[in-house]
């Protein structure tokens, strides 16, 4: 089965990418200080300052959720399959994989790989690692993702996965960061263990503070994991992160405050990497609840915000406008043909009239926990909406508990709020997770018959052009009838010190070069 190719860097797209074109180029083609990035060198200590991490983080892979644990995992673990810098699937612990009908998948396990403990990596370990996320007593967050798997078994040095229905994208699911290959014992993994088969061995860790790993001398990849030592430090305060980078305490930081990017660059100590991906910020509306049950009201709101201005201000230009489309420019079937929605108060008024309204009073609940700048974005939305006769009140809610009490409208009092999605490498993954009728994370509580029909059909469609057509139509439906306003795709913005060299291409699949900066980067 051929692995589908993701055009990772669509730099010359028209329309939607215009405002970000310059930035995209800057992020891709590194400033000359980083060039030439040729011969990799071994050695050095790589220190990373991460704006996440908490004393209550868990080692259990089924509960991982923030960049700190994700990067820590990438240090010590390998996966069945890796997403390469160019978006292609790269064999990792699975040497190869194959299917005949799309329902039964056979993964051949690489021989001669050992865990840090010295134990060989076997097919049984892989089965135990996958099964940790299945079954009734599993608490894994990817349990729904693997729900279609009916059986996983080891057969010699292969692992056979059976699905209830064909899915061409199963290998992509196996790249999910929650599913590392860990040593199994009686068919189970020890979720509290830090043993893995990755490039670095854990020396010490204290959650919410710091972890230290040293190079695995027996690592099976000879062209990876260049550093002798990696230290991950949790630095939650944005200014403290900047200061740590400027004073040389760390080499790499995430979430650079857009307002300070220019000033940081002019310091000359670090360069900005701005990587466009599928991540997006949005404002979901509960379509079960008035007035959001009327698509005209939803459209009015979609025309009442200034997407360009939001990209400029909230993202500091490090992103691109989105046409209320959760499928991003790094996806295979990204739809660029749709009519672009722009800020148009008259059009918004028109849709309000269509809905039988003269004016609209709504409240949006925002917190910076949803995405950094969400409160400001709400204030901007409110300002532009006023010209369209929409009185949008911004309700700033506590960061604390945002995802459990506000998002998804569990109490019925926050039908309109803010959201963030990391994006998904494949369209089906994104749509099934957040737009299929009845999906747990369907944040708009939205249901569209035509869309749901297409979603199931496209999953097992083998004709490439038919499949493309289906996904194009689905995006059209989500964009113009959906219940989530998506104004922008945000780039992954990180700042890296000049003494660290980075490859020419940085992965658009997740932050920090797909969390693999610890493996792929080296000391300049």
């Amino acid at each position, binding site marked *: 089965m051929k692995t589908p190719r993701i055009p990772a860097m669509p730099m010359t797209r028209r329309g939607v990418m215009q405002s970000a074109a310059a930035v995209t180029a800057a992020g891709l083609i590194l400033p000359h200080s980083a060039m030439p990035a040729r011969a990799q060198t071994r050695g050095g200590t790589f220190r990373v300052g991460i704006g996440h991490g908490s004393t209550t983080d868990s080692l259990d892979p089924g509960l991982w959720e923030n960049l700190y644990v994700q990067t820590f995992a990438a240090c010590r673990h390998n996966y069945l399959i890796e997403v390469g810098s160019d978006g292609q699937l790269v064999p990792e612990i699975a040497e190869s994989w194959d299917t005949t009908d799309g329902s039964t998948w056979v993964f051949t396990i690489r021989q001669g790989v050992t865990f840090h403990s010295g134990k060989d990596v076997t097919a049984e370990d892989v089965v135990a690692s996958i099964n940790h996320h299945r079954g009734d007593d599993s608490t894994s967050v990817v349990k729904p993702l693997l729900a279609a798997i009916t059986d996983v078994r080891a057969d010699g040095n292969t692992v056979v996965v059976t699905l209830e229905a064909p899915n061409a994208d199963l290998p992509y699911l196996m790249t999910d960061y929650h599913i590392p290959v860990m040593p199994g014992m009686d068919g189970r993994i020890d979720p509290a263990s830090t043993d893995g088969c990755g490039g670095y061995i854990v020396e010490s860790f204290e959650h919410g503070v710091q972890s230290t790993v040293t190079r695995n001398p027996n690592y099976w990849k000879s062209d990876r994991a260049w550093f002798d030592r990696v230290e991950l430090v949790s630095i939650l305060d*944005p200014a403290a992160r900047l200061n740590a980078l400027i004073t040389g305490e760390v080499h790499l930081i995430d979430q650079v405050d857009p307002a300070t990017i220019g000033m940081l660059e002019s310091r000359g100590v670090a360069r900005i990497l701005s990587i466009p991906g599928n991540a997006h910020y949005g404002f979901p509306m509960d379509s079960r609840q008035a007035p959001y049950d009327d698509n005209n009201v939803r459209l009015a709101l979609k025309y009442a915000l200034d997407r360009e201005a939001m990209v400029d201000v909230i993202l500091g230009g490090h992103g691109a406008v989105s046409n209320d489309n959760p499928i991003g420019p790094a996806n295979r079937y990204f739809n660029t043909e749709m009519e672009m929605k722009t800020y148009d108060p008259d059009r918004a008024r028109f849709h309000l009239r269509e809905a039988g309204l003269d004016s609209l009073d709504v409240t949006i609940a925002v917190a910076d926990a949803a995405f950094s700048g969400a409160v400001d974005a709400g204030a*901007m939305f409110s300002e532009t909406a006023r010209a369209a006769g929409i009185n949008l009140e*911004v309700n700033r809610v*506590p960061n*604390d508990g945002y995802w459990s009490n506000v998002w998804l409208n569990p109490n019925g009092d926050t039908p309109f709020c803010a959201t963030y999605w990391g994006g998904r490498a494949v369209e089906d993954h994104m749509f099934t997770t957040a737009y299929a009728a009845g999906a747990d994370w369907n944040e708009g509580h939205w249901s569209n018959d035509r869309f749901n029909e297409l979603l199931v059909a496209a999953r097992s469609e083998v004709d490439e052009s038919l499949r493309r057509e289906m996904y194009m139509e689905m995006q059209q439906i989500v964009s113009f009838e959906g219940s989530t306003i998506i104004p922008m795709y945000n780039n992954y913005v990180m700042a890296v010190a000049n003494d660290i060299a980075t490859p020419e291409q940085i992965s658009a699949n997740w932050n920090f070069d797909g969390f693999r900066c610890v493996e792929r980067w080296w000391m300049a």
Partner: protein
Amino acid sequence: MGFATSVLLGLAGLFALAWVLRAGARSILTGQSRSIANDIPLTAAFGLLVIAIYAAVAIAAPALAPFPEREIVGGQFQAWSAEHLLGTDRIGRDMLSRLIYGARNTVGIAFATTALAFVVGSILGLWAALTGGWLDQVLSRFVDALMSIPALIFSLLLLTIFGTSVLTLILVIAAVDATRVFRLARAVAQGIVVMDYIEAAKLRGEGAWFLIRREILPNAMAPLVAEFGLRFCFVFLTISSLSFLGLGIKPPTADWGSMVRDNATLITFGDVTPLLPAGCIALLTVAVNFVVDWQLHRASGLKES
């Protein structure tokens, strides 16, 4: 360092103005007010002048501000210019206008909060000291328990439970502050309730409310006023620290505490923008406490300088 120079010049100007006004008051006023004007130190005159200016700005905010409080009128972080005297903020609102409206919102909220905390805290404190017995014990132990929980974390808990509207913000901060006021008021009043004149009033058959209002409060006023000055200013800081932890005043309301927080990363690059709201808070704090010090000095009856 044009900024530092202009700040120093501004402060010197305020002092000079205060000196001129005091001299003017001395020559114009007569009688009681004249003696106050003669007595007032320059620092207190400065404090009064600053407070007067803040009050005027707060009252006349809509007339003074060149732009509306919430309107986006320019790009992000525009430099100081003729149109936007202090530039624009993170989402392109006029900084000067936000500062001016901030005076109204921040000072209003801080005043409401502190006043509430003092009314509740001092009445309960004086009452506990006056009544004594189990009431005193229960109230004091309860307040002790509340005080032993870190204020910021306790506020965080309460605000998460009750939401973050301006009203709950005022109530929560006032509740936390009131425990501190209670303790002080009770301590001060304990020294007063044993005095003979309280005994006499009790024998006259006066009620507790009368005793608190007419006998104890006037004599406990000085330390309470001093505390008021500091607590008033701490409200700004509490709001600022809360916004550091992701709570605080709701947008688009302009308030200095949150404005410091919003722009704080810029200080890393030596940009003065976050100094503006912080400076507004600092100037008011110093001014209020200069006046408080003067009042304390007068109350203590210590005549030497």
